[in-house]
């Protein structure tokens, strides 16, 4: 009863308040702008993925054609690029493009997809250095600032909308004098504030959810209902956190100006300062060596390898009998020697990368531990993950590409070592990359802890707010 009465009254108040209507209108425009940006980016990525696939198909077709021509008595286009040589067929000329489809909800959260590569040309030469390649062509300035997508609007601006709507739910009633009449009715301040906030929550979450669903519908992302639910749920819980905080501050019975100052301060600390502090701490406690040493290592290893090819080959064959298959020619061919050198460089690169990755893992562990300090970091993690543009999905892609590169080498290297030639007949047996996407359940499992913590924060702050508001009896 109280709830419905207050909701109706709030609706009337909102309808009569021009400033509030303007704020809501501005936010609706921002939401739509963000969605349009995300959708444009999703379309761009889809086109790029298509182009990468087409390019790959054309390359393979050309190879096939040349192999057929040679089989019919033709000559290879260049003696160094003879497609019958396994290090050419499995090398750059025959490389296969491994593609990561854009995340199902890319239109909602660009996430890391503007920075990290989402396709690799995989050949026998794919090594750790290959994973250092750049992602999409992008203005560094734009990368630095980040995109205006729904995730940004949700993480940064939505809390401000929530606070603008609710920083004075109780203080304003007191300041304009209506609280006395209200509380002389058989209602508690807690119920009134709850009803007023419920009205605003429906408005804000409704707006966010409606725009999100619009984007999902428009980009056909409904294929993964689990992700959609996770997205909407996270937005809701995150918004509720800010409502609860506003309720709590209102329960302190200070003036509207005081509430506004404190809430803006809380926003600043939780959304800007704490995430920055976590990162600064991570950088200071676990400084990351730059990747440049990878270049030095690669150079030194290859200088070294060139001089010790035969020795390296012998060692390689000892270490990898499965590659040799017992058919090594008595006189190792040039291809085999070159491969041994390549492998030595790769091994060295893996060592350097392993050291680097271990340091990086320490840094990430610290960041992950302290992300619980900031609801913004938690929400951002889950939102980007739900969209399929987070670090986890890219890491999964990279590890599958790594595995695929291994498989690819397994296919070609024995032939290199045996100095064999290949023909069009092997093409149907060549390994094929198919990305095994994460299941919504995997995403949900990763989201459990951050969401539980976020939910716990909501419960905690709400309880505090309820206790504070429960003590509000009179109008002053």
């Amino acid at each position, binding site marked *: 009863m109280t709830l419905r009465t*207050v909701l109706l009254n709030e609706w009337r108040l909102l309808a009569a308040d021009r400033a509030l209507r303007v704020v809501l209108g501005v936010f609706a425009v921002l939401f739509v702008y963000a969605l349009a940006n995300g959708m444009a980016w999703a379309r761009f990525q889809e086109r790029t993925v298509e182009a990468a696939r087409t390019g790959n198909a054309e390359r393979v077709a050309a190879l096939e054609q040349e192999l057929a021509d040679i089989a019919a008595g033709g000559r290879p286009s260049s003696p160094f690029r003879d497609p019958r040589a396994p290090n050419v067929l499995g090398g750059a000329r025959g490389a296969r493009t491994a593609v990561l489809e854009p995340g199902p909800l890319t239109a909602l959260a660009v996430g890391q997809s503007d920075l990290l590569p989402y396709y690799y040309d995989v050949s026998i030469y794919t090594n750790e250095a290959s994973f250092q390649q750049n992602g999409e062509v992008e203005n560094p300035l734009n990368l630095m600032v980040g995109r205006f997508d729904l995730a940004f609007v949700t993480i940064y601006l939505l809390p401000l909308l929530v606070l603008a709507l609710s920083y004075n739910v109780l203080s304003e009633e007191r300041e304009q*004098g209506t609280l006395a009449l209200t509380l002389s009715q058989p209602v508690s301040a807690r119920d009134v504030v709850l009803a007023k906030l419920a009205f605003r929550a429906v408005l804000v979450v409704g707006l966010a959810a409606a725009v999100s669903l619009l984007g999902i519908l428009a980009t056909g992302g409904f294929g993964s209902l689990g992700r959609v639910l996770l997205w909407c749920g996270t937005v809701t819980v995150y918004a509720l956190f800010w409502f609860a905080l506003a309720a709590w501050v209102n329960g302190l019975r200070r003036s509207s100006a005081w509430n506004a100052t404190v809430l803006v301060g809380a926003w600043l600390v939780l959304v800007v300062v704490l995430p920055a502090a976590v990162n600064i701490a991570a950088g200071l406690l676990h400084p990351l060596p730059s990747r440049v040493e990878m270049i030095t290592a690669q150079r030194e290893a290859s200088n070294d390898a060139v001089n010790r090819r035969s020795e390296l080959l012998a060692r390689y064959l000892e270490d990898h009998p499965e590659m040799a298959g017992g058919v090594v020619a008595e006189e190792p061919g040039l291809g085999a020697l070159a491969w041994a050198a390549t492998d030595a460089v790769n091994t060295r690169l893996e060592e350097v990368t392993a050291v680097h990755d271990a340091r990086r893992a320490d840094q990430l562990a610290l960041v992950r531990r302290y992300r619980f300090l900031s609801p913004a970091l938690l929400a951002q993690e889950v939102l980007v993950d739900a969209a399929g543009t987070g670090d986890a999905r890219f890491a999964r892609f990279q590890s599958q590409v790594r595995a695929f590169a291994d498989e690819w080498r397994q296919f070609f290297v024995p032939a290199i070592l045996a100095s064999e030639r290949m023909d069009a007949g092997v093409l149907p047996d060549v390994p094929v990359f198919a990305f095994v996407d994460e299941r919504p359940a995997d995403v949900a499992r990763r989201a459990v802890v951050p969401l539980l913590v976020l939910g716990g924060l909501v419960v905690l702050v709400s309880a505090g707010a309820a206790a504070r508001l429960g003590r509000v009896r009179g109008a002053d």
Partner: protein
Amino acid sequence: MSEVLTMDAPSASDAAAPVPVLEARGLSKRYGDTEAVTGLDLRVGPSEIYCLLGPNGAGKTTTIHLFLGFLEPTAGSVHVMGLDVAAAPLESKRRLAYIPEQVMLYRNLSGLENLEYFAALGGTGSLAPERLTDILVGAGLPRDAVGQRVSEYSKGMRQKVGIAIAIAKEAGALLLDEPTSGLDPQASNEFSELLERLRDRGVAVLMATHDLFRAKESGTRVGIMRHGRLVNEMSTDEIGHADLERIYLEHMHE
């Protein structure tokens, strides 16, 4: 006009075992070192208009806020129709209507919308707009002002919306805090007439006021408060205007 004044009179059985509508027992309220109300005993029965007189800071408003449960007593208790306010704050407020000194309303809503809101909060259920309009007009608001935004209202018009809110609640008790301060004489007179009609319906009224004249005119009993204590209590039938003024001033100069 009269059909809108339908506040329930206490039933006949109440008269047999006379439970006062409003009752304070040994009521005290202390803020830090200052005693706002001390050992107050007060009973207001049906059809009584009890006027609390006293200078600023005597504890009149505090007493009313204690009845409303806005404040928690330091000692003693307040009861509305036998209900302990501390134990059943919402139940007791359901039986009370209250008009603050300054009736402040939602400025962006009309008088009708304000009444509709507060009446619904009061638990009377939703009333039809025509009926609410009748109540507003009955309380003295011009009919053409009913749909206007409150931001265009004068203080007196806001006060009338406050009265309408109290009437619509159909409560057995009415708490008034300086209801006529700042009203012009005509509005004050209309207000007094309204009070008498309510009293005729059996409503118990507790009114804090500075206005000796109106207390004598409308009140059935007066209580004089000073420094948080009830220093005198008398029936208005027993005394004249001049007596009341003399007694009041005597107490003030003690």
